[in-house]
């Protein structure tokens, strides 16, 4: 652990990354199960958004453990 970020914020970011990962996995799998096209679209958008968000969070976490 280096001193880039505080321990408290690193813990919070990790917590968010775990939560987001679960959400994205759900959005991705659920896409295959829904029949309504509108809902499918919302889930698809969320999966893409979460994809980017997780990359951002991972970036922060990589800095934190470097």
């Amino acid at each position, binding site marked *: 652990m280096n001193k*880039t*970020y*505080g321990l*408290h*914020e690193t*813990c*919070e*970011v990790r*917590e*968010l990354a775990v*939560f987001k990962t679960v*959400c994205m996995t*759900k*959005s991705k799998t*659920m896409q295959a*199960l*829904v*029949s*309504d096209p*509108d*809902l499918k679209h*919302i*889930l698809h*958008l*969320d999966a893409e*958004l979460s994809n980017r*968000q997780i990359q*951002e*969070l991972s970036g*922060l976490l990589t800095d934190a453990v470097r």
Partner: protein
Amino acid sequence: MNTILEHLTGMNKLTDQIIAADFLVSAKTSIINYSAALTECASAEIKTVLRKQLAEAIDTHGQITDYMMQKGLYRPYFLDEQIRLDLANAQTALSLPS
């Protein structure tokens, strides 16, 4: 999901609704999680990322609530109807073979 299996389990009507409800719950939790995390952050860099993602989470929440209200899956203005809907869903879930 396999259509035969869906009909067999009575899940066909439920899946979309359950998935949408699950998504709504996640969207609500998302807002709360991001806000709580933001109050623990001091670094500007982390804050910028989280602020942006919080705004996105709020937008996603708006999107799914609007969708569910439009489809009649979420009736926040009519609490008794909402409760009846929830009870019916709970019954269906209970009757699923485990």
